[in-house]
């Protein structure tokens, strides 16, 4: 595997987790391509045009995206199901159009001048974020999120502020997507609006759905397979996209809950079962 592909794989794992975190509260977000674009441009502008250091720029990009995520999420998360999906799609369209029409960041031509990234930075990030999500999966918060996802009304009745929890995770997911977007921009040295089309948002969601939505490892498996596979079947030539699509359809037909469907139990009684 080339370094280039390895870096894309790492960035895509982070993106998959950004969707996974939001999906923990039952929200399927097609807006993460937009948050990724935000992160790419904010960190790009800060480093290339204002000379701000790499990590401060990344942190500011993530924070900005979290704020925008919460601001857009507040009205968006009032809708559910198919409507929410449409609203998150709309966020992606809006951000792409906004970037295309902003001269300061080069409009449709895009902008360059980023600082590059490294294997250590990308996979260091994957490890840190992965460790945090693993801790989450073992903490009482995991159950709160599971409750919100499974039955928002019952979750509310036992005292969980469902809107707050959803909004918080939407903001965290947006921040993570932006961080990954920043890594992407620096790795590419150049970004343009057409790097962040709706297809990107759809692909990130696909990583999670295909890998399995019930645990953090599904996102990793989905992101790795869907990043590496198109390269691995390059020899097929022009039919590549078609074969790729077909493989996804077949997988989802036979494993609807993804490749890794299990959910980890957060607490055990330590007693003998069914004595």
């Amino acid at each position, binding site marked *: 595997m080339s370094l280039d592909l390895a870096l894309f794989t790492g960035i895509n794992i982070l993106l998959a987790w950004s969707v996974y975190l939001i999906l923990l509260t039952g929200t399927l977000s097609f807006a993460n391509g937009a948050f990724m674009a935000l992160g790419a441009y904010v960190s790009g502008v800060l480093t290339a045009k204002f000379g701000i250091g790499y990590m401060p720029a990344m942190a500011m990009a993530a924070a900005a995206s979290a704020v925008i995520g919460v601001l857009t999420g507040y009205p968006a998360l009032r809708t559910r199901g198919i409507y929410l999906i449409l609203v998150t799609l709309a966020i992606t369209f809006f951000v792409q159009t906004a970037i295309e029409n902003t001269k300061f960041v080069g409009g449709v031509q895009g902008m360059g001048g980023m600082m590059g990234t490294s294997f250590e930075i990308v996979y260091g990030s994957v490890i840190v974020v992965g460790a945090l999500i693993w801790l989450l999966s073992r903490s009482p*918060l995991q159950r709160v999120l599971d409750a919100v996802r499974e039955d928002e*009304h019952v979750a*509310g*009745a036992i005292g969980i502020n469902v809107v707050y929890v959803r909004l918080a995770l939407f903001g965290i997911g947006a921040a993570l997507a932006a961080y990954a977007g920043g890594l992407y921009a620096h790795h590419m040295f150049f970004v343009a609006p057409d790097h962040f089309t709706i297809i990107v948002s759809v692909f990130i969601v696909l990583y999670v759905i295909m890998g399995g939505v019930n645990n953090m490892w599904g996102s990793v498996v989905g992101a790795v397979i869907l990043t590496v596979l198109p390269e691995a079947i390059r020899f097929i030539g022009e039919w590549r996209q078609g074969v790729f699509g077909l493989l996804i359809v077949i997988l989802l037909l036979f494993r609807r809950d993804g490749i890794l469907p299990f959910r980890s*139990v*957060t607490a055990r*009684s330590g007693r003998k079962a*069914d004595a």
Partner: protein
Amino acid sequence: MSSVLSVDGVTKTFGGLVAVDSLSLTVEPGEALGILGPNGAGKTALINMVSGFYRPTAGTIRLFDREITDLSLHQIGRLGIARTFQNIRLFRRMTVLENVMTANPRYTRKPLRAFFGFGGRRHDIDEAMALVEFMGLADRADRIAGSLPYGDARRLEMARALATGPRLLLLDEPGAGMNEEETERLIADIHKCRERLAAIVLIEHDMTMIRKIADRVVAMNYGRKMAEGRPTEVLSHPEVKRAYLGTTEGELV
């Protein structure tokens, strides 16, 4: 001492349909109030308003003198009203123990702080296990909730409700679909729960349950109060018999 719950002139309309029509009632400390009525009488609509699922169209609801009429679902839950559902609603993917642990107020109130809630892990498990045991589910604690038989699922729903530390418990037809033996056990379970609660409201069709649990009964029809009093009085009230039992014979009573 003030009433646990006071419902005052509460109305709920859905479009042109009047589900509850300026209904008033109180639930006193230590009391189990039974609510009786035919399907569509507005019993569940009433419970849904008290627990915050619906907002009343008119009227006020108080919990210990604190007005809760316009509070949201989670605020009412935090103030101490817990409920069960006609069609049992568990977190089906979680285990029995996890269902009860989820309702722990320490984490439902400050969800993001729950991320750091590792320290009390053993304590949390013990606390939840005490309730699981209380409801007689200890040997099933690690089973997935979705796989429980009906009676166990109902008991788990009650254990989860108790885990929120409620003062008032609303039971929406807990005995629906149970046979005689299961009903007997349920009655015993509800009596056990009462020790931990300031009061109980029980919606029920089952006359045995009403008579064995309720201290006082409110009979509803068309969203209004038809009769109120001790179970035997209400159950023998002619209007109640006509509306609810569809008969003037007394054999069901």
